[in-house]
């Protein structure tokens, strides 16, 4: 009995470690993508625009471009995933109990879904406002 319990515990630990490793890979991959997408975002929005920020009409003209629209939506999705996986890693470093970890996972998924949904809605609303 004790042996089977120990074996199960070990398997659970191995599964958790595999999952942690997969999430680490997702974080590394999204991080590398962000180097390019965030770099492009910062240059396009803050460094090549006079005054450092686009005015209202410039923003609408910018998001009216379908390619830019797609890149910005992908940027919101990738940045949110990367940020929330990082937040999870930090919270797990504080060693919460296993039951709390489950709650944290769901809370982070909910925050991510709301942030991505809101970002998509905002981008679509701006594109409509631009008349694209």
């Amino acid at each position, binding site marked *: 009995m004790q042996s089977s319990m120990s074996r199960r515990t070990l398997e659970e630990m191995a599964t*958790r*470690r595999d999952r*942690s*490793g997969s*999430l*680490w890979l997702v974080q*590394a991959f999204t*991080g*590398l993508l*962000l*180097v390019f997408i*965030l770099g492009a975002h*910062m240059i396009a929005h*803050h*460094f090549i625009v006079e*005054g*450092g*920020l686009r*005015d*209202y*009409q410039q*923003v609408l003209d910018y998001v009216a471009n379908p390619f830019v629209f797609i890149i910005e939506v992908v940027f*919101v999705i990738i*940045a*949110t995933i990367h*940020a*929330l996986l*990082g*937040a*999870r*890693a*930090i919270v*797990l*470093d*504080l*060693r919460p109990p296993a039951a709390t970890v489950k709650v944290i996972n769901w809370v982070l998924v909910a925050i991510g879904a709301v*942030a991505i949904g*809101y*970002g998509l809605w*905002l981008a679509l*609303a*701006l594109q409509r*406002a631009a008349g694209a």
Partner: protein
Amino acid sequence: MDDIQPTTDPVRPKAPLRSWFDVRGRSLSTLAFALNRLTAIGLTVYLFLHLAVLSMLLGGPESWNRFLAVARSPFFLLLDVVLLFGVVYHMANGIRVALVGMGVGHTQHKTMFYVLVGLALVLFVVGAALIFVG
């Protein structure tokens, strides 16, 4: 390397949060890791603030242009410089952590840190100058 352990690795300091701020006798890796975490928290908060601020665009040109007037004030430009430091440092150290974690350049991780963070500092200085001058 402390910073390439999977998140749930049991080998952790006893007071992880406090240890980020305690710089006494720390190795370069630990300091890099702590600064990476601090910039990560700042950037995560900024991401959600940024999304919230963008909703002002839905209020039309007056709402957005009022925000622009505030965002172009010297205090906000200074905050932009702090943000830029967070971005370039997190990016440079993140590239190093990702590469080392995937088994690339594991033995030269310190050299990689100095080269990447050095490049990041150059980007930071150029970017900070552009924020105030551009």
